[in-house]
């Protein structure tokens, strides 16, 4: 692939990701006179929590809940601002820091083809995606992320199935189940891997004021509503198999212990046409890694998190980060992080002096510290059992759904090649992680499976190397035509 031909458009601050972090940063930077470009692959800004309906589709009372209040205010303050250079339906596929204070070149894959943008400085706010669960049948049509189901409701105003089973460890699944129910779906069951007391014990700690935690109180209200509607909410259970020929026809649900080991003799089958899995999130740090930014592993806080200083500067010159890619902390925290990162970027391009930035950052940092404490409780509460996927997957389960690599063939290859000790080497050997999603769905399981077979510590197998472009550009007539 060659660099895009046309000369690069020039901007002050390029923001990748128009979610809460990116929107709040854009507002603050524009208010300080910076030239701002916002890049997002969705047709409208808002990010994952505010996936908006298509223009032309009008929804009365769209997302009325308190959890959406702050982010919706920020959305209203920025979405129609003509001073921002909006690059929607455009994926940032490469970041090329020019060194010596010469800024960063970005490559964008747009409906009009590949384009380049040259920015004095870049803020990466690409958010996260859902953590999948590798269980027998997980590639059958009808198995989706719970957040994926939710985005069909929120944005597309579609009930994306008839009868649903939700299974996971994250309280978001209660909110999703309730939204589906209200929209007219049947909910066959909601299964939590945790035993009820595990969560209740945490909630009983004096540090946590449940009512002050919007996400948890929304989940508690949803639970009440689901139970009142007669929906079974099971604790200490997980989906263990999706049944069906061409798409889902049933979910097999069984008790699981604290390590994730299922008791299949006590399995139950629920007839359904969709299964939503909800095990929390993995941060989208692929662009940061491609640009060489330092990352550190955290299972609980979202995977390979991008390291940063107090101004949310990454280890790469002129590359700032904000929102979930610095560690899962929720949408309100993403707003505040976006503001601090914007102040850091404005300092860098000389649009604000150090004292001015410090004065504005003070109250933001105080609000953020409080939100980070809440986030810590939520991530502790929603951690899945350590080895759930390892216990659930059978020989035929696909470890890598892009390259069709089964668990059995991966294990065999790894056992036959004792010198393989990194996730990258296992990828080259087996092709697991080499497909179109670039290992975003399987990379973690590739590493964990390798580490288990080698007796290595979690994280010892390292992160998958991220190649440029980070998304396949111009999917051609043949899949995999990556140019």
């Amino acid at each position, binding site marked *: 692939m060659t660099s895009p031909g046309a000369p690069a458009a020039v901007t002050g601050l390029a923001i990748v990701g128009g979610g809460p972090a990116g929107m709040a940063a854009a507002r603050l930077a524009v208010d300080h006179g910076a030239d701002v470009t916002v890049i997002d692959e969705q047709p409208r800004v808002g990010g994952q929590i505010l996936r908006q309906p298509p223009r032309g*589709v009008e929804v009365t009372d769209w997302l009325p809940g308190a959890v959406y209040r702050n982010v919706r205010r920020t959305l209203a303050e920025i979405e129609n601002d003509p001073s921002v250079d909006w690059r929607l339906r455009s994926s940032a596929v490469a970041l090329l820091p020019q060194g010596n204070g010469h800024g960063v070149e970005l490559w964008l894959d747009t409906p009009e083809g590949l384009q380049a943008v040259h920015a004095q400085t870049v803020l990466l706010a690409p958010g996260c*995606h859902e953590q999948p669960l590798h269980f027998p049948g997980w590639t059958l*049509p009808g198995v989706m992320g719970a957040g994926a189901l939710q985005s069909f409701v929120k944005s597309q105003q579609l*009930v994306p199935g*008839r009868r649903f089973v939700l299974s996971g460890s994250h309280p978001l699944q209660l909110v999703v189940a309730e939204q589906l129910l209200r929209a007219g779906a049947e909910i066959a069951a909601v299964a939590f891997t945790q035993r009820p007391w595990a969560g209740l014990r945490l909630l009983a700690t004096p540090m946590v004021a449940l009512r002050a935690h919007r996400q948890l109180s929304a989940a508690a209200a949803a639970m009440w509503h689901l139970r009142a509607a007669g929906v079974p909410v099971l604790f200490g259970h997980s989906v263990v198999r999706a049944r069906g020929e*061409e798409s889902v026809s049933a979910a097999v649900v069984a008790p699981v212990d604290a390590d994730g080991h299922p008791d299949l003799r006590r399995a139950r089958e629920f007839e359904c046409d969709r299964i939503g899995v909800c095990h929390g999130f993995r941060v989208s740090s692929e662009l940061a890694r491609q640009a060489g930014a330092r990352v550190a592993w955290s299972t609980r806080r979202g995977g390979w998190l991008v390291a940063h200083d107090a101004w949310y500067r990454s280890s790469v010159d002129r590359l700032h980060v904000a929102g979930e890619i610095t560690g899962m902390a929720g949408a309100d925290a993403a707003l505040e992080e976006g503001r601090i990162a914007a102040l850091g970027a404005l300092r860098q391009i000389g649009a604000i002096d150090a004292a001015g930035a410090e004065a504005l950052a003070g109250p933001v940092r105080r609000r953020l510290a409080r939100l980070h404490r809440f986030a810590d409780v939520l991530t502790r509460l929603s951690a899945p059992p350590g080895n759930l996927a390892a216990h659930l997957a059978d020989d035929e389960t696909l470890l890598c759904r892009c390259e*069709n690599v089964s668990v059995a063939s991966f294990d065999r290859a790894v056992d036959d090649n004792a010198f393989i000790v990194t996730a990258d080497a296992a990828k080259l050997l087996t092709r697991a992680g080499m497909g179109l999603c670039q290992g975003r769905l399987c990379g973690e399981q590739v590493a964990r499976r390798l580490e288990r077979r080698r007796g290595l510590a979690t994280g010892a197998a390292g992160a998958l190397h991220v190649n440029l472009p980070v998304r396949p550009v111009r999917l051609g007539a043949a899949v995999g035509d990556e140019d």
Partner: protein
Amino acid sequence: MSMRIEHNVSRPPPVQITVDGAEVEATPGEMLATALLAASRTVFWRDASGRARGPFCNMGVCFDCLVEVHAGGGQPRRVRACLTPVVAGMVVTTGAVEGP
């Protein structure tokens, strides 16, 4: 089976698209994945072993919502249906009818 929410929602008039040779009504601007699910299509493509595949992430990550879109006589393009808005007259081929 999926259904569009009607309560509190107003949509522009529907347009026609063609899916595997059949005429399907869709809302302009909604994602192709939405139009296909609403038309009871769950198999979007088949992998090298002939296994049925469909959308998993609904946000552009998994590439399991791939379909072919034929536009104005040129080569068909493989697109992610969850990131591709519906345009009147689109001609779409899914993996539903192909054998392994």
